């Protein structure tokens, strides 16, 4: 192994090189332990309650962009080259009488804290809203924006109303805070932390490596085919905090330049999305090309999860209930897989995304291979496309089922139909019988009824805590009806979340 290249980051204003830590260490564990910052709380240790929310600053040219993350599942080593802000950083000084940050003051003024345990997390989420509003003053901060920013923060005391008031008040009252005033300088300091080499270190027999190129990543994979790849850690984090799993090598893909690109290779497509592209970075582009995907993307996880989670991760982990696979399969996505080739080269192969999922827990992934990118055809004007997510709670919930519908008409008749579901089988899967029932038929209620019946041949869903088998089947059929109603009427036939 090459010599260690330790990670370093800014903790508030201080340069920090923690050194000597197990690569499994989460930001939260480190903050509350060695960093002696106990303002950040653990509510669930699985990225679902937001009590541990911190802001992570990344350089964007001359300035810094802050985003919310769940510290409980964020590997400390993933902070390399970034700035970490916690609740202790916001006020002028962490002592009574010191001037509060506008979001803190607003939370006091609106009685936004009762027991106070979730409060530091809310404060940090509100801080990122405040920051974004200062940087993009033209984007309105309406209730749905506030809801989106707060979706990943659970409060059991207040009923949220005062926190929403605090969000509005803090944005109204916004002047430049000291982070904005220092943004140029902070960006310079972060630029100084950037480097050409790959961060890597070993502690107690556990190795962390963060290659910066696909070739380097694949080289690591060739040498350690059992390395645990880590992207957003929104799944891997839980294996560590809940199942207490340990890995010999953690291979972080978040710095691999080629995997973070989103690009149109030609004007008429396809759209190529790197496997390490985070939801937050793909959301606007995907929504622009595929408006039918937008609502699902906004309901997938919450801000903290979308800031960390990657599209490649959602595919590679092979979950039967991930929301991206059905959405992409319905579009006819292709998957590019890569592994180290001869003489330092890269060997790739391309498959239909649906073929990647062989059965529950098993994917078409060869030793040393990784998911590199998704290739998406651009939409055509004669097609309808929608993705519908059904969950117990409207936002920030794992789907009971997710249906993606893609139909192209030739005149009145269905020329092409691709229907894919998550949550209906051990893998994300197309409803082939339903599709067949539609092909060549007039796009009508009759055809829909036949397709709904045909779906009995497609799925035998499970019953579990998210939904019973009968609900899944009924809702899956009804979603097809919803799709038809919406395509026929041109108007939403569902509960519309805020724009």
């Amino acid at each position, binding site marked *: 192994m090459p010599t260690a290249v330790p990670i370093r980051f800014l903790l508030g204003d201080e340069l920090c090189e923690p050194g000597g830590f197990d690569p499994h260490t989460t930001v939260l564990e480190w903050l509350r332990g060695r960093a002696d910052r106990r303002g950040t709380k653990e509510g669930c240790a699985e990225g679902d309650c937001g009590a541990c929310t911190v802001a992570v600053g990344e350089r964007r040219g001359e300035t810094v962009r802050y985003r919310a993350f769940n510290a409980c599942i964020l590997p400390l080593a993933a902070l390399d080259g970034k700035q970490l802000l916690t609740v202790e950083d916001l006020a002028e000084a962490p002592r009574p009488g010191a001037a509060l940050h506008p979001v803190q003051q607003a939370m006091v003024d609106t009685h936004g804290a009762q027991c106070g345990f979730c409060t530091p997390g809310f404060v940090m989420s509100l801080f990122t809203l405040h920051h974004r509003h200062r940087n993009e003053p033209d984007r309105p901060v309406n209730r749905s924006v506030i809801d989106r920013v707060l979706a990943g923060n659970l409060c059991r005391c207040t009923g949220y109303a005062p926190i929403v008031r605090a969000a509005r008040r803090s944005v109204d009252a916004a002047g430049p805070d000291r982070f904005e005033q220092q943004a140029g300088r902070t960006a310079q300091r972060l630029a100084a932390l950037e480097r050409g080499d790959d961060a890597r270190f070993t502690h107690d027999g556990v190795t962390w490596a963060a290659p910066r190129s696909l070739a380097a990543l694949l080289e690591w994979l060739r040498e350690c085919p059992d390395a645990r790849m880590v992207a957003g850690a929104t799944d891997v984090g839980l294996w560590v905090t809940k199942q*207490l799993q340990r890995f010999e090598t953690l291979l972080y893909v978040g710095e691999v330049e080629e995997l973070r690109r989103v690009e149109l290779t030609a004007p008429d497509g396809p759209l190529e999305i790197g496997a390490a592209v985070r939801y937050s970075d793909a959301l606007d582009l995907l929504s622009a090309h595929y408006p039918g995907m937008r609502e699902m993307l906004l309901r997938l996880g919450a801000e903290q999860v979308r800031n960390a989670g990657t599209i490649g991760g959602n595919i590679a982990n092979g979950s039967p209930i991930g929301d991206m696979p059905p959405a992409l399969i319905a579009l006819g996505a292709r998957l590019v897989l890569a592994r180290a080739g001869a003489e330092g080269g890269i060997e790739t192969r391309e498959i239909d995304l649906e073929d990647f999922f062989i059965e529950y827990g098993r994917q078409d992934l060869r030793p040393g291979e990784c998911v590199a990118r998704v290739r998406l055809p651009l939409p055509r004007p004669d097609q309808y496309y929608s993705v519908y997510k059904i969950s117990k709670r409207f936002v920030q919930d794992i789907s009971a089922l997710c249906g993606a519908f893609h139909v192209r008409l030739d005149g009145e008749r269905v020329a092409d139909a691709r229907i894919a579901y998550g949550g209906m089988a051990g893998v994300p899967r197309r409803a082939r019988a339903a599709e067949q029932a539609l092909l060549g038929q007039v796009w009508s209620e009759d055809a829909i009824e036949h397709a709904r019946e045909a779906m009995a041949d497609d799925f035998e869903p499970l019953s579990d805590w998210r939904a019973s088998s009968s609900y899944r089947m009924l*809702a899956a059929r009804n979603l097809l009806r919803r799709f038809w109603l919406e395509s026929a009427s041109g108007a939403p036939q569902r509960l519309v979340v805020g724009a």
Partner: protein
Amino acid sequence: MDKEVRQSPAEPAVHRPLPHDSAVKHVTGQAVYVDDMLEPEGLLHVYFGTSPCAHGRIGKLGLDRVRQAPGVVAVLTAADIPGANDISPLHRGDEEILASGEVHFAGQPLFAVAAESRDAARRAARLAEIDIEPLPAVLDIETALERESFVDETHEMKRGDPDAAIESAPHRLDGVLHMGGQDHFYLEGQAALAMPQEDGDLLVHSSSQHPSELQHLIAQSLGRADNAVTVEVRRMGGAFGGKETQAAQWALLAALVADRTGRPAKIRLDRDDDMISTGKRHDFRTRWRVGFDDDGRILGIDFELAARCGMSADLSGAISDRAMFHSDNGYYLPAVRIRSYRCRTNTVSNTAFRGFGGPQGMLGIEQVIEAIAAHRNLDPLAVRRVNLYGGDGRILTPYFMTVEDNVLPELMDELAEAADYPARRGEVESFNRAGGVIRRGLALTPVKFGISFTTAFLNQAGALVHVYKDGSIHLNHGGTEMGQGLFIKVAQVVADEFGVPLEQVRISATRTDKVPNTSATAASSGSDMNAMAALDACSKIKRRIAAHIGAEHGVAEDSVRFDSDGVWVGAQRRDFADVVLQAYLARVSLSATGFYRTPKIHYDRETARGRPFLYFAYGAAVSEVEIDTLTGEYRLRRVDILHDVGRSLNPAVDLGQIEGGFVQGMGWLTTEELWWDEQGVLRTHAPSTYKIPVASDVPDAFHVRIWERGDNREPTIHRSKAVGEPPLMLAISVHSAIRHALTSLAPEGVLAPLDAPATPERVLLCAERLRSGA
């Protein structure tokens, strides 16, 4: 203390919307919870291993690998407990700290492991080789009733002849309602830190609503007297009833380890383990039969309530009692029988949760009201109105308490008008007549909630107040702070008693060595009782000062007044600090304990008659929803609430309780679903699978008002009313509104058979039943 601030005239603090005393600490991350405390040298971390099986006989508890795991210092089983292995709050001996012999639910603690780090303790705990011989498990209410498996005696209330009244009524209906439980989901999980003291005594910091009970249980487990243990609670990160009895087990494990090893010991539960191994709100099955007249007026009613109590009694008796006490909600029931079964099941022992059975009682009668309305084709609000308490002889509850303070008729009228109920009901129905995928529903539901512990002896509270010779004040009382704003409310009362600025009153952590023998901070009674006790302490000190200063000035003791601009001795104004110093120099005691016992209350179980409550708190809510009839998804569109808190001690705190209580209740009735598998293992044990409301579930049109005309005819503290629990039940309006939306799919006269929680699945399956006419 800032001298200038202290000497400026104080504005009265009571009735003002002051921020929570810890607000600035909350928003800066400086508020200290148990796990945030500076860790003492030599600290051990405690974790535990549990039963994987719902009912069985423990064969072999193989703990060698646990003992040998890295970092492990001690492993404890039931055999290592020097005193009583019992955490029953009623001392029934039906719930062990660590199971011996048999296990009674999946998730029941079997052993504790102490290690040098929390990670080491958690890893070690998973290495146990547990051999349990399975026994038949009773998992649900139906099976428990069949087998007569109960934790407590069946209780019955009866007035008049309900069977005859139902039989002879012009209309009769019956029904059944299943209600799920609810996890507390306090954001701060269970935690405790035990520190050895001299002579083997212990100081225990715990996130607990009931320090006195903890103190006693710890002492009992160690075979020591209560005075060997001190429990301190500064604040909790939420509790909601989930830390009334449920904090004990974990504090006990920390205490046992500290006692055994002589080292400080801390325990903090992981969220999943917390949800698996601690009790929740009781699920209920309510059956009813009702007879009524053409106007929907109830003539006779018969309720059968069955609660799933879990493996032990815990507080299930009192919770079931409170469900019975609230089976009338705000309605007069002329002839009534309420029978309550307390079912023992092989599931975690269910426990206190905000409302304490009241919500389940109320949800039953509200379903009856709506069934009557559907049957008679009446607006449910009209049926609610004709059944309200009031009018000739219609003031007696099923337990023979006279309702003296009913304000529901006027409060509901005011709310209906403010929320524009009649017009909106019309709009909703015409919207639904269009027959689209989306349907709307609107409902107004009332709340009448009895205030006092129904176990009479618990209605006592103590306080300790010191006035230091510089005029600063130290306040302590038996109530605990869990975010509900108790500390600020009591401090407001104390500041005004002495006429000093609020800043001059120092709030301190609840400790069993300052105020002994306290009751749990529960039953919404925290400020009612503790503020009264603090007031009593203040009065004693004031009387002593007044006697001395009055004598010095040659005026009568009662001519000395403690006002916001100073101490008035006859016509002369003195600074509070001067008077205090003078009293000190004259050797007047400036420290006092205070005590309060709630007057008037009594209940005789034999006859099921009495006055269990000092007064009632009232409120009402209007909720409007829309549902998607293809998926069962729903959204809350608008909420209007009017709630009676008497004369509010702190309107900001009270508003927070109302808003927060409503949303928590909405969670119980909508998305919060506890799901056990066929083996009796809870599978929704983390926020990824158990879904409490988030910000977007609360509509922008959320109009919450404290009722301006609110008062309390009983002489409570500044005529305020308790506010902790009552607002939770305002959320019944959401359930009713969803039912109303579903009713648009139903044939006339049919009530949508909607159980709780109304998950999208239940809503859709209910819609399907209605559409298919089943």
